[in-house]
C-alpha cells in the first residue's frame, strides 16, 4: 500500500518537491472519502482544509435564488480543491459537492500554515505552486466569461 507521501509525489501541483517537503506536507495530510452528493465544504464555513482529489469528481457550486445550485466548475483527479485556507478570513466562497464517490487527500490548513511560518522556504514554494494553479483557473474562468460560444446577438 502506498503512503500518502508517495501519492503526493504524483500530484501535479506538488511535482518536483523535495522528499523533505513532501514529508512536511504529508505530516498535515490524511486520506478521506465522500459519498455521492456529500458536501466537502459549504460556502461561509471556516476554511481550515484543502483537498487533492484522488478519485472521482467534485463540483464547485453556488446557490442562485430561483435557480438553485449552479455548478461553477468541476475538479478532477489530481487537482486541488480550495485555496481560501491561504488567506484571511479563511472562509469558503463556494460549496463543494461530491459527484459520485470521491476519494481525496485532506490537508489540515492550520497545521500547514504553522509549517510555512516555521520554514519560509517551504512556505514560499507552496504559495508559488498554489499561485500557479490560481492563475490557470483564472485564465480559464476569464475564457468562459468571454462567452465565446454565444452567437454575438
Amino acid at each position: 500500500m502506498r503512503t500518502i507521501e508517495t501519492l503526493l509525489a504524483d500530484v501535479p501541483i506538488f511535482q518536483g518537491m523535495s522528499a523533505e517537503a513532501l514529508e512536511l506536507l504529508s505530516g498535515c495530510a490524511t486520506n478521506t472519502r465522500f459519498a455521492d452528493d456529500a458536501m466537502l465544504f459549504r460556502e461561509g464555513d471556516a476554511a481550515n482544509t484543502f483537498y487533492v482529489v484522488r478519485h472521482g469528481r467534485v463540483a464547485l457550486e453556488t446557490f442562485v435564488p430561483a435557480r438553485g445550485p449552479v455548478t461553477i466548475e468541476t475538479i478532477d483527479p489530481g487537482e486541488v480543491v480550495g485555496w481560501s485556507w491561504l488567506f484571511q478570513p479563511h472562509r469558503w466562497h463556494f460549496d463543494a459537492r461530491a459527484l459520485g464517490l470521491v476519494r481525496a487527500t485532506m490537508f489540515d490548513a492550520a497545521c500547514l500554515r504553522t509549517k510555512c511560518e516555521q520554514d519560509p522556504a517551504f512556505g514560499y514554494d507552496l504559495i508559488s505552486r498554489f499561485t500557479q494553479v490560481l492563475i490557470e483557473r483564472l485564465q480559464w474562468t476569464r475564457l468562459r466569461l468571454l462567452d465565446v460560444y454565444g452567437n454575438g446577438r
Partner: protein
Amino acid sequence: MATRPFRVTRRRRETSDTWTLELEPVAGPPLDFLPGQFTMLYAFGIGEVPISICGERGGRLVHTVRAVGAVTEAICGSKPGSVLGVRGPFGRGWPVEEALGQDVVVVAGGIGLPPLRPVLYECLRRRREYGDIFLLYGSRTPADLVYRHEVERWRGRFDIEVDVTVDRGEDGWRGNVGVVPKLIASARFDPAAAVAMVCGPEVMMHFAAGALLERGVPPEQIYVSMERDMKCGLGWCGHCQLGPTLICRDGPVYGWTQIEPLLEVREL
C-alpha cells in the same frame, strides 16, 4: 458559378438555434468532398452562406447550420422536400492523410464540431491506420452540445477517447464544467506523435492551441479552421482575406505556424 438545386431529405434540430439538414441533388451526381471543405449554401431569393460539410463521404450531403441571420434562419427553417442551392465543395481540408500512424486529437468548441465530424468518420472508418483517437468537445451549456447522442455513442466505444465539458452546468449535469484547454491538459495522447485539429470560435482555438503547445505538441502538428466573410468561395470577391491568404482558396484549414503570426495582428 451558378448554384445547384439540392432537395432537403431530412431536418433535425440539434439545439435551440442549430439544425442539421441532409440534402441530395435534384439532378446530377452527388457531391464528393474532403473533410474540412465547405459549400456555399443558398436560400432562394435570400442569400448564400459558407457552411462546412459535416457528413460522411459517399453519403448524403449533410450541413449543420446555426441560425444567426436572415439566410441561416431560412436555411434552418427549410423542411424536407424544400430545395436549397449548393455551390462547391471549396477549400483545403483537414490533414487526414498526414495524420496516418499518429494519435489524432480532435478539439471542438460549440458549432466547431460539425466541420470536424467528417475527420472522425474517416479515422474511425480506417481505424487501424491511426494511433489513439481523441475527441475533446466543449460547448456553452449541456443543451448546446451538438450531436449529443452520437457523441455519447462514441464515448461508449473502446477505440476512441471522448471528453466533454461545458462552460456552464445545468440541472442534472454531472459532467465536466470548465474549458476545453483543461481537457487538453489531461488527455492522454502522445504529444510527440499527435496531430491536433481544432475548430471553434477564434478565441477558443487560440487558447486550445496554447494548451496543445504546453503539452508539447509541435506547432507544425496543430491545425485550425479559420473563418471570414465570404461572398464567392472562389477567390474573387476579396472578402475572406486574412493578410496574405484567401481563406476560401488557401483554407479554411491552416497549420498553426502559418496562422499564429496573423492572429497576433489586431484587425488584420
